[in-house]
């Protein structure tokens, strides 16, 4: 099911003019605070009526400004996981999970509830009040509650923003499972690159209320022109590969198209497909294959493009096998290496530079 959005909305000097499509999988709305991300999802949820445009989910027209169509939020069948959870304080966790059935005036589906409770690991929390839950627990319950409303699509507005790194790491796998097992299209709002890199199938890049670029996650992350948008310190291409072994010394081997990567222990069984984000600033380039170097990952690469920035840095886009990686280096080094499209070199990545959070299942 595809969500098609093309809307315009103005308020308080800010105008949003955005058009994008969210096919299946996770579509990430990525942008800084104030880029209009929340306005967009609220319009999709029906919590806000845009000034103009159309919102269509599958075959259903949810909003059509010209035709005067506005489907009320309770009829949209779109689950919404809010940043702050928004659990009902007067109901227990079980009461919150049973709420969607109550809201629709039907009996709760016990089997479905049990399945969701099991998937999110919230069984021990059922009798508790939301006030007695940690941030991570709250978000898991909020996710479960949204799923139990039998939605055709799920909206998640910075669901992890209020959580610390540990809690984030605790919830991300659940969202990955959701994406892979439930087949539910998810519109995921975030300004955290790590989450987007792990979860997104499609990325919609927003800035100042406009869509800068939209497309498959791998393509956008591999585009050196967009690196400043993602943030130079964090930008980096996505490599997809397969876990082939976990070594006794704690390293995991992941086969990518251009060779084998040695990474800190990957939380996936051999045979699993994973996606690895290699930050451009962690990549070192060498003309010749270096000897006696501590870095474990040395992959032959071909320069595709070199993008000049404003400062002393450049970003090189390289082909490693079938995959693309980005490397950030100084202009001086780029000139010394005589980097130009077509040139062969070696891309070097320290294993420990790849954070565990940068590896996600696909």
């Amino acid at each position: 099911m595809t969500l098609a959005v093309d809307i315009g909305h103005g308020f308080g000097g800010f105008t949003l003019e955005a058009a994008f499509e969210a096919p299946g999988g996770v579509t990430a709305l990525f942008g800084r605070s104030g880029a209009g991300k929340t306005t967009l999802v609220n319009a999709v949820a029906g919590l806000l009526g845009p000034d103009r445009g159309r919102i269509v989910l599958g075959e259903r027209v949810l909003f059509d400004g010209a035709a005067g169509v506005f489907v009320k939020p309770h009829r949209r069948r779109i689950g919404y996981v809010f940043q702050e959870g928004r659990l009902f304080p007067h109901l227990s966790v079980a009461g919150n999970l049973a709420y969607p059935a109550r809201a629709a005036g039907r009996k709760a589906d016990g089997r479905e509830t049990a399945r969701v409770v099991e998937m999110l690991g919230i069984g021990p929390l059922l009798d508790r009040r939301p006030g007695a839950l940690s941030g991570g627990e709250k978000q898991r319950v909020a996710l479960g509650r949204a799923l139990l409303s039998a939605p055709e699509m799920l909206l998640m507005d910075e669901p992890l923003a209020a959580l610390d790194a540990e809690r984030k790491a605790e919830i991300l796998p659940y969202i990955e499972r959701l994406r892979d097992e439930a087949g539910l299209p998810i519109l995921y709002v975030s300004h955290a690159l790590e989450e987007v890199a792990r979860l997104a199938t499609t990325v919609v890049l927003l800035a100042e209320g406009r869509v800068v670029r939209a497309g498959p996650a791998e393509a956008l992350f591999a585009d050196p022109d967009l690196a400043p948008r993602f943030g130079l310190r964090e930008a980096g291409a996505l490599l997809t590969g397969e876990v082939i072994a976990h070594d006794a010394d704690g390293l995991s081997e992941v086969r990518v198209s251009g060779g084998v990567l040695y990474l800190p222990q990957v939380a996936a069984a051999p045979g699993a497909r994973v996606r690895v984000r290699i930050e451009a600033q962690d990549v070192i380039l060498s003309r010749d294959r270096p000897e006696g170097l501590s870095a474990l990952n040395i992959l032959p690469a071909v320069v595709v493009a070199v993008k000049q920035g404003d400062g002393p840095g450049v970003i090189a886009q390289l082909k490693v096998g079938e995959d693309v990686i980005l490397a950030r280096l100084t202009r001086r080094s780029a000139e010394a290496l005589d980097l130009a499209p077509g040139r062969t070199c070696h891309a070097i990545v320290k294993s420990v530079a790849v954070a565990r959070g940068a590896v996600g299942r696909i």
Partner: protein
Amino acid sequence: MGLLGAEEWQALGLSLRVAFWATLWSLPVALLAAYALARWRFPGRGLLNVAVHLPLVLPPVVTGYLLLLTFGRTGPVGGWLEAHLGLVFAFRWTGAALAAAVMGFPLMVRAMWLSLDAVDRRLEEASATLGAPPWRVFLTVTLPLALPGIIAGALLGFAKAMGEFGATITFVSNIPGETQTLPSAIYTFLQIPGGEGAVAALVAVSVAVSVVALVGAEALSRAVARRIGMAP
């Protein structure tokens, strides 16, 4: 009967009956008015606000007189009610209840308005995205979360009804057994030489009823707040 004579008991019983019915009938109306004022923007909202607060600022005698004009047997509403429903307010205990309800109304509305304002609108949005139509959002989210304030409002209305004097005596007079509530009875005994003993007893009863009502409502409010997980 010990401290209280038959007439005093009668006054107490009547006051409780008047306050009970006044509170019960004005509760839904006050809740509707509070909800409208807290949530809706409509033409005439300012006018409604003024109308709701009028009994609070008008001299009670004026309110009583206006009630007499409107709900008296020859008044436009009173005449109609008697002709079509057989309902008479003038010089009946029902009139005392109406006067008490009107006088307590602003207090009720204000307390409920405040508690409705304090309900997190984002929870109502969440409820809607989970499939609840607006009326169900109100019943399952708004109402339970505003309940402590609604109870407080009802208590204020009840206390006001127990103590209402000016509008009551103007509208329905001071008829023992029919419209002579506690304050009216105190007033009556104050006019009689040697009535101080009865006055003292009635005053003590008034204080006791008020304290019991206050403490009871406070306890109830706390219990509800705890149940909905909002206790401090």
